[in-house]
Each structure stands twice: as C-alpha cells, then as structure tokens.
C-alpha cells in the first residue's frame, strides 16, 4: 500500500514543491490544506501516514495544528517546515513531538530524507524499520 501524505502549507508554490519531490518516489499525496484548521480536518478525514506542516499560517498555525493532531494520535508523524530557523522555537516544536524539521528553502533530497526518517525507513529502502 502506498504511503499517504497530507501537505499543509498556505503557499500553493510550497505545496507543489513538496508534491513534486515526494510523488515520483511513490508517496501518495492524499490531501492538501492551506491552513492549520483545514489541516486538522483533513487529517481526521484522510488519516495519513505522514504530514508535512508549515508553521506560520493563517487561521491556525502549524504548532497549534500539531498539538491537536498529536492529541488525537500520539503516534502521528509530522514534519515541520519553516523559514524561522531559531533554536528555542525548534525546541518548543520538538517538545510537541515533531518528527523532523526542514528549513526553507530546501533541496528535494532534504524533504525526501525527512519523510523517510519520519517513517522509520532507511533512505531509498521503501521499507519501515522494525
């Protein structure tokens, strides 16, 4: 079965970049959301294996959405994608249970390795670690 991914980012450009990096590797982009509130809603609906989440978004930011998702599913795998590269803010997100951080702008390889790490796979193996 394909790995289902939900992309949450308010910028269409970023959603297309992430889709373009993951789709060719066999990830199924099961949904996209343009803010945190929509992201939580789609998470409930799709139940994805992985979420890529922007932090700064209108309506509900990525950290609030992460809290809600982790409250519903403590094992949820969420990669935070942010342009704000500040240690204290990253530590805060780590405490909320984020799987990895990707700082914008990023290379395709970086988002792919973050996705594989979050899913517990070794790079390019396509299999989960047991």
């Amino acid at each position, binding site marked *: 079965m394909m790995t289902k991914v939900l992309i949450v980012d*308010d*910028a*269409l*450009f*970023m959603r*297309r970049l992430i889709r373009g990096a993951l789709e060719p590797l066999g990830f199924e982009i099961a949904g996209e959301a343009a803010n945190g509130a929509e992201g939580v809603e789609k998470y409930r609906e799709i139940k994805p294996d992985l979420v890529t989440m922007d932090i*700064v*978004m*209108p309506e509900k930011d990525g950290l609030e959405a992460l809290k809600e998702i982790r409250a519903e599913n403590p094992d949820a795998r969420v990669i935070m994608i*942010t*342009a*704000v*590269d*500040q240690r*204290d*803010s990253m530590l805060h997100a780590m405490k909320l249970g984020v799987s990895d951080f990707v700082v*914008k*702008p990023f*290379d395709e390889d970086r988002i792919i390795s973050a996705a594989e790490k979050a899913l517990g796979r070794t790079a390019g193996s396509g299999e989960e670690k047991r």
Partner: protein
Amino acid sequence: MKELKAWMDHKIDGASKKAAKMSSGNLGMNLLSVRLVGLHEVGGLLGGESASVVGVGMSLLCEPPMHFLMLMTPEARTAVVEAVTGAGSATDEELAASILQEMGNILGSTMANALAELFERVVQTSTPQVVADMAGALLSGIIAGLGDIGDEVLLTDVEMTACGNAVDSRIFLFFGDQLHQRLIPRVREVYSEAG
C-alpha cells in the same frame, strides 16, 4: 552605521543564497547601502506615491513590533516570478502570489532569525501578505498597523537580480523607536565582542 551595514551585509548575503536556492540560482541580492530615511520620503523612493507597486510584507513579532516590507515595481514582480518558474512559463495568479509570499517569508524570516540571534530571544513572524497598490496607500496601511514607529525607517537598499538583470526593488524595515535605539548599539557590541 558602519557596523550596521556590515551586519546587514552578512544577513543579506545569507538571504541571497536562500533566494538563489529557491530559484535554481536565478535570483540574487547585493546590499548597496543601509540608511535611515524619513517616513515622508518612503513613498517617493519607488516612482512616487501614486506609482503602482507590489509589496510583500510581514510583521516580526517582537516587542516593540517590526515590519519587513519588500517593494517592487510590477515589472520586477514579473521578473522575480519568472526567475522561479522559468521565463515564459504559464503561471496562474495564485501561484505567482504564492511565489512572492514565499520569497517574502524566506527573506523576512532571515531578518527575524538575525534579530533573534542578536537579542537572544525568539522573534516570530506573521503570515506574509502580498499587496498590489499605489505606493502611498500601501505604506499608509502598514504605518497605521504599526502604531508608534517614530519618524524614520531603516532602508536597506538591495540590488536584486533576476536571471542576471537588475530588478527595481527595495527592502524596508519599520521599527519602533525603542528597538531602533537598541539595534545599533547591540550590533556595535556584538562586533566589538567578536574583535
């Protein structure tokens, strides 16, 4: 101002590398000068108060708040978008706006990260906004939103290039008097600590 220019030069260089990464090397930036300009002069810097401009702005959420604004002409906007998508690519309006939004996000966040490092505190950012309007109207809106920001703004005169050609744009930092008074001494302090 010498230390501030050196500090800003370093930060703009970092922002330039990020812009290049976002555009397969097509976008670049080079800091020309850093100076304080009177608020009343700002509207005239990019073709006058009634000139059509595109602004990409975001608030830096510190105390007192700051505002990052990148202003460009409509021609510069097209050049920047094409530098990211490839010249002549069909680009819908939503995608073009989101490219500018992301560009503002990355550049504004570079400033937020730099201030966070300088003042050893978290500086969060608002969602970047892309607005097309007359220069005067756009600036009045930002100034009204910031409240008490004093009479001057920091103008970082940055030459932006798209596919090797200079594009008409400017970057402004609007900040309250208190932060303004702390910024230059703090930069000076950091440079003297670094020897």
